[in-house]
C-alpha cells in the first residue's frame, strides 16, 4: 500500500535537530514544535535532508525552521510570500531539490492567498504545510481567515459574527485547483492523529519527489495563549469545535499526471 520505501522508523529526538543554544521559542502547550517533529521524522525516514530546502513564513511557525538542520530561508521574504519564494528556488535548482514551506493560517490564507493559489494553479512542484491555529499568534491573537464562527479573538471580542465573514476550508479549496496533486488535513490532538498527519506529510513530499505537482497539507494546531485555554483544554477544543468544522482526511490524491 505504501509506495514510498520506508527505510527505517525513527524515534527519540530527531537527528535533524540543530544544536541551537536557545530553547524552542514556542509558548507552553503549543503544538507547533510537534509539527516540526513530524517534518523532521519524515525527512529522516525519506532520507532527503541533503536536498531539502525549507522556506518559513512569518509567525509562530517560523521557529520550526530554525531548529531543523536543513538549508533554510527564514523568514522566506515577506509575510505570506513563501510559495513564491519556493517557486523561485525550485525553478533554479530543478527537480532534485525538495522545497517545503512552513506557514501559518494567516500567513498562507490571508496575505498569502495570491501566492498560494497561483503557485497551485501553476502546478509548481513544491509542498506547502499550513498550521491552522485559528488566530494570528505572534501579534496577540487576532481574527484569521480560518477562525470558526463564534470564536473570540482580540479583533472579534464578541466572537466571530456574520459581518466578519466565514472560515475558509483551505484543504478543500486547494483540492479544486488542477495543478494540485495532493491535499489533506491532519490534526495533532492524539497519537493516532499524529501518525495519520505524519503519513499525509510523507505522501505530500513523496508527490514532490515523484515530480507530479503541487502538494498541500493543513495541520490543525492550537494556541493556548490566544484561546485563553489550558493546553489540555485547547486540545479538547480542537476535537470538539475544530474537527467538526474542518474534517480530517485526504481530499485529493492523484497518482499520475497526463498533461
Amino acid at each position: 500500500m505504501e509506495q514510498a520505501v520506508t527505510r527505517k522508523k525513527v524515534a527519540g529526538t530527531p537527528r535533524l535537530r540543530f544544536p541551537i543554544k536557545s530553547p524552542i521559542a514556542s509558548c507552553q502547550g503549543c503544538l507547533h514544535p510537534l509539527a516540526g517533529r513530524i517534518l523532521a521524522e519524515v525527512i529522516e525516514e525519506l532520507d532527503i535532508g541533503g536536498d531539502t530546502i525549507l522556506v518559513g513564513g512569518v509567525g509562530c511557525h517560523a521557529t520550526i525552521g530554525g531548529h531543523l538542520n536543513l538549508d533554510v530561508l527564514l523568514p522566506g521574504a515577506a509575510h505570506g510570500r513563501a510559495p513564491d519564494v519556493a517557486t523561485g528556488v525550485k525553478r533554479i535548482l530543478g527537480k532534485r531539490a525538495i522545497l517545503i514551506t512552513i506557514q501559518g493560517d494567516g500567513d498562507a490564507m490571508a496575505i498569502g492567498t495570491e501566492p498560494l493559489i497561483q503557485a497551485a494553479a501553476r502546478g509548481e512542484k513544491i509542498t506547502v504545510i499550513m498550521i491552522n491555529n485559528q488566530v494570528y499568534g505572534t501579534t496577540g491573537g487576532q481574527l484569521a481567515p480560518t477562525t470558526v464562527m463564534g470564536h473570540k479573538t482580540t479583533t472579534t471580542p464578541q466572537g466571530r459574527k456574520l459581518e466578519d465573514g466565514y472560515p475558509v476550508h483551505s484543504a478543500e479549496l486547494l483540492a479544486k485547483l488542477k495543478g494540485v496533486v495532493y491535499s489533506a488535513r491532519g490534526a495533532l490532538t492524539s497519537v493516532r492523529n499524529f501518525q495519520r498527519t505524519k503519513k499525509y506529510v510523507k505522501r505530500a513530499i513523496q508527490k514532490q519527489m515523484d515530480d507530479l505537482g503541487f502538494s498541500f497539507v493543513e495541520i490543525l494546531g492550537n494556541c493556548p495563549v490566544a484561546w485563553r485555554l489550558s493546553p489540555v483544554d485547547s486540545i479538547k477544543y480542537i476535537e470538539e469545535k475544530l474537527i467538526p468544522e474542518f474534517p480530517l482526511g485526504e481530499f485529493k490524491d492523484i497518482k499520475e499526471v497526463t498533461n
Partner: protein
Amino acid sequence: MVEIMEGNHALGWGALDAGCDAYCSYPVTPQNEVVEWFAREFPPRGKIFLQSTSEIESSFLCMGFVAGGARTMTSTASPGWGLYPEGMSHIVAAELPLVVALLMRGGPGQGTTRHSQMDYTSATSPGGQGGYRNIVLAPYSCQECYDFVQLAFYLSEKYRNPVILLAEPNVTRVLEQMERRPLTFEYPPDKKWALKGKARHSDGKSRLLTSGYGLTSTEEHPSYLSYLKHLHDKFEQMRASEVRYEQYEIEDARVVLVAYGYTARVSREVIKQARAEGIKAGLIRPLTLWPFPGEPIRKKAEEGAKFLVVEDNLGEIGGLSDDVRLAVAGRAEISLVTALDRHNPGEGGSIYPGKVLEKLKGISQ
C-alpha cells in the same frame, strides 16, 4: 477631565472625536493595540471596523471607504508600510482623503519588533510611483497623538490628500496623562465627489473617480497637464501654509538640536543638562515632517549656530539630516547622533541623553 491613557488608544479616541466612520487595517507588531482598540470600540458605536487580509488590501479597502465619502483611518507598522506605496499612489492620484498612522519599527526588511525612526524618508518623499507628497505629522506624546489625529483628518479633507502620522511604539505604548477635549475644525462643506449612486447627488449628475488621469479626461481635469498642474499647485500650497514646528530655548542657542518623536524628548532633557553646564543649546522640533520647517533652521544657520541632528536611524545615509542639510545650504556645520549610538546592541536599544550630551560637548568647544 485628565485621564491616564496609552498613545495607541489616544489615536483611537482622537479618530472617534474627529468623526471617523470607518477603520480598516492588518495586524502587525507594534501597532496591534491600535487595531484591537478599534475592534472593541467601533462596532458597538455602529461604525465600520474591518480587518483586511493584507496591507495591500488595507490600502485599497480604505480607497473604497473614502470613495464612498466615509471619513477613514488605517494604521500599520514598518513591514506593512512597504506594501502601502501602490495604494497610496492611487489614493493621491484620485485625490481622496485618508489618515494613515505609521508606527516605526527597526528596519529594513522584517527588522526588529521594537522602535526606530527609519521610515522618515519613505514617509516624507513617498516610495509610490509619480513623485507625490503627503503631509506628515510627528506626535511625541499621548496628548499629541490625540490632537494630531484630529488635525490629520481635517488636513486630509482640506487638501483631498492622505496625511501620515509618524510615531514610534515607545512613544505610543507609554501610559501618560492626557485630556480628551475634541478640537473643532471647519471641514469643507460636503463631498460632492463621493460615489453614492446618481440619484443621491444634489444635481443628479453621475460622478466619476479615477486614478489614471493620463488615460481619462474629466470636466474637472480636461488634460493630463492641467491635472499635474493642479497637483503641483496643491503640493506648493501645502508647503506654503501647513508648516508647523516647535522651538525650545532657541533664542540664544549656539548649538541647535533638530529632532522629532522620542529623540525630541531625549533632546529636551539634554538641553536642560547642557544649560546647567553653561552650554547654550536649543531644540527645533518639526511637528510636520513634510512640509519641512526649513525657515527657522536657515535663520539660525545665518546667525552662525551649529547643528546636531538626533535621529534613531542611519543618519549618514539620509532622513532628517538630508532635510536639515537642504535648509542649512552649506552655511553651518551639521553633526549627527544616529542609531549607531544606541545604548545597547539589541533590538531594544535607544539613544540616551548621555550620548547626545557627549556629542554636544564635543561640538560646542
